[in-house]
């Protein structure tokens, strides 16, 4: 069942001067078609200005398409009455952990979403505890977010979304401002939620090794989808990725260079383990 559907979607940013005259138009999304199945874990890649953040905001109904329709969980996002239903079912985590935490106590912050939905006190408390539990932050319930690390803050932001019991989580470069340890924790959490709760996850990132963990990769370029497929399929096209000004994971690049210099091995290797297995097989054959 497709949970997110883009049909011929376009969106443009318009800059106006003081007299409301248009000075600049920038088409961030052009005639985009996309569908994401329930329970999928999709990574979105693309260099700056390729339209990936705009894509995220369209899913959460923070912006509405200029033309075409975005359907989330069966709701058309451009219909006024649907906006809060869409936002409830598609939670969003942003890049800067400091700018998305609202309250000065962790528990209160996680409760912010359910409070907005008008849920009863006892139920909110249950949801907050459960959400903090599943991101591994329950013991910080009474802490001030200010004293936590970036990775911990980002997990709190994820818990804040979880407490609204969404079907989809959209993460807009959640690890861009984190240290390697924090990045690992956040990613682990996202993968766990996707696997255990079957929450559809859309991860926007510019880290290739993160994208390699997804089930599907979408590469954006100039407001359009340039590539779409399994990580192994996408990363094996090293030349095309370079054209789009993107890297591939180190191990995939090594794989590509070996293949190019005549080593007999398949393309699309993503992990060190796969690479060692393949090299061992070559050695046995020789």
């Amino acid at each position, binding site marked *: 069942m497709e949970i997110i559907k883009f049909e011929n979607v376009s969106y443009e940013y318009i800059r106006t001067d003081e007299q409301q005259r248009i000075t600049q138009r920038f088409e961030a999304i052009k005639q985009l078609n996309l569908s994401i199945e329930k329970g999928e874990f999709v990574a979105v890649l693309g260099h700056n200005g390729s339209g990936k953040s705009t894509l995220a905001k369209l899913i959460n109904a923070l912006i509405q398409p200029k033309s075409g329709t975005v359907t989330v969980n069966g709701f058309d996002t451009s219909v006024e009455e649907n906006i809060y239903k869409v936002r409830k079912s598609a939670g969003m985590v*942003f890049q800067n952990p400091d700018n998305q935490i609202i309250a000065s106590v962790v528990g209160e912050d996680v409760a912010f979403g359910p409070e907005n939905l008008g849920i009863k*006190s006892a139920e909110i408390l249950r949801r907050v505890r459960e959400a903090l539990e599943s991101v591994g932050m329950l013991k910080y319930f009474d802490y001030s*977010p200010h004293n936590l690390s970036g990775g911990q803050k980002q997990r709190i932001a994820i818990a804040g*979304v979880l407490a609204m019991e969404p079907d989809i989580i959209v993460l807009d470069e959640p690890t861009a401002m984190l240290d390697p340890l924090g990045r690992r924790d956040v990613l682990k959490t996202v993968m766990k939620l996707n696997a255990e709760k079957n929450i559809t996850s859309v991860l926007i990132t510019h880290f290739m090794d993160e994208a390699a963990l997804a089930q599907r990769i979408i590469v954006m370029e100039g407001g359009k989808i340039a590539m779409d497929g399994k990580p192994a399929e996408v990363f094996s096209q090293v030349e095309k990725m370079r054209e789009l000004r993107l890297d591939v994971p180190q191990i995939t690049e090594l794989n590509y260079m070996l293949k190019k210099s005549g080593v007999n091995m398949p393309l699309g290797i993503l992990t060190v383990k796969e690479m060692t297995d393949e090299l061992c097989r070559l050695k046995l054959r020789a």
Partner: protein
Amino acid sequence: MNERLIIGQYYPANSVLHRLDPRVKFIGSFAYITMIFFAESLLSWFFAAVYLFAMVIISKVPVRLMLKGLKSILFILIFTCILNIFFAPGETVVFEFYFIKITLEGLLLFAKMAARLVLLIISSSILTLTTTPLALTDALEFFLRPFAKIGLPAQEIAMMMTIALRFIPTLMEETEKIMKAQKARGADFETGGLVRRAKALVPILVPLFISSFKRAEDLAMAMEARCYRTDIKRSKMKELKFQRADYSALVCVTGFIAGLIIFRYF
């Protein structure tokens, strides 16, 4: 650094006063502050002081912290002292030296004024030392709620306070970062006169303002993404609820008001 990060003056301890509903504490301090303006006789002053002293003991907050608040009014205290002692009209002269004339009435007036100020500061300190800023915000929202009918956005005011409290440490950290960055490029914040130092602050404020606007924009979007809206009533995870102790405390406050009124005429 950490010393400054403590928002408000909340002193964490496990006392009856700490556990009381913030609304009761609000009412209690308000009643106290109002009532000390009614104190007249020596007995009523004594009663008010003993009552407050009992509260300080119950609160388990070190007396040292209570007295800290008094430091800030020391200047006002000395100033009124001088004014009252020298210039208050009175008949009974205690001491006279050329144009300086100290009268008994002046001394009494000063004593009353000083006592009032000291009690006022201590009583409000008890409130802020035993209540977290968040609980204070909740209480304030409750008291503002009746005014929502005449168009006062009580819920939004409380939300603004919550966000302000949340961002105080963040912005303080940011200020420090900017200052360090500018010091590294040779800015001087420590020397020079008042005007020079004030001028040195401008290059800090400008980037601070710009980044605050950026933060505000991000935060607004994050709040919207989490379904924040102002057209409906939000629910609360922790509803304020009166416990038995809160009712007892209200009885206690009423007792104080009655006591002071009675003692006033003795």
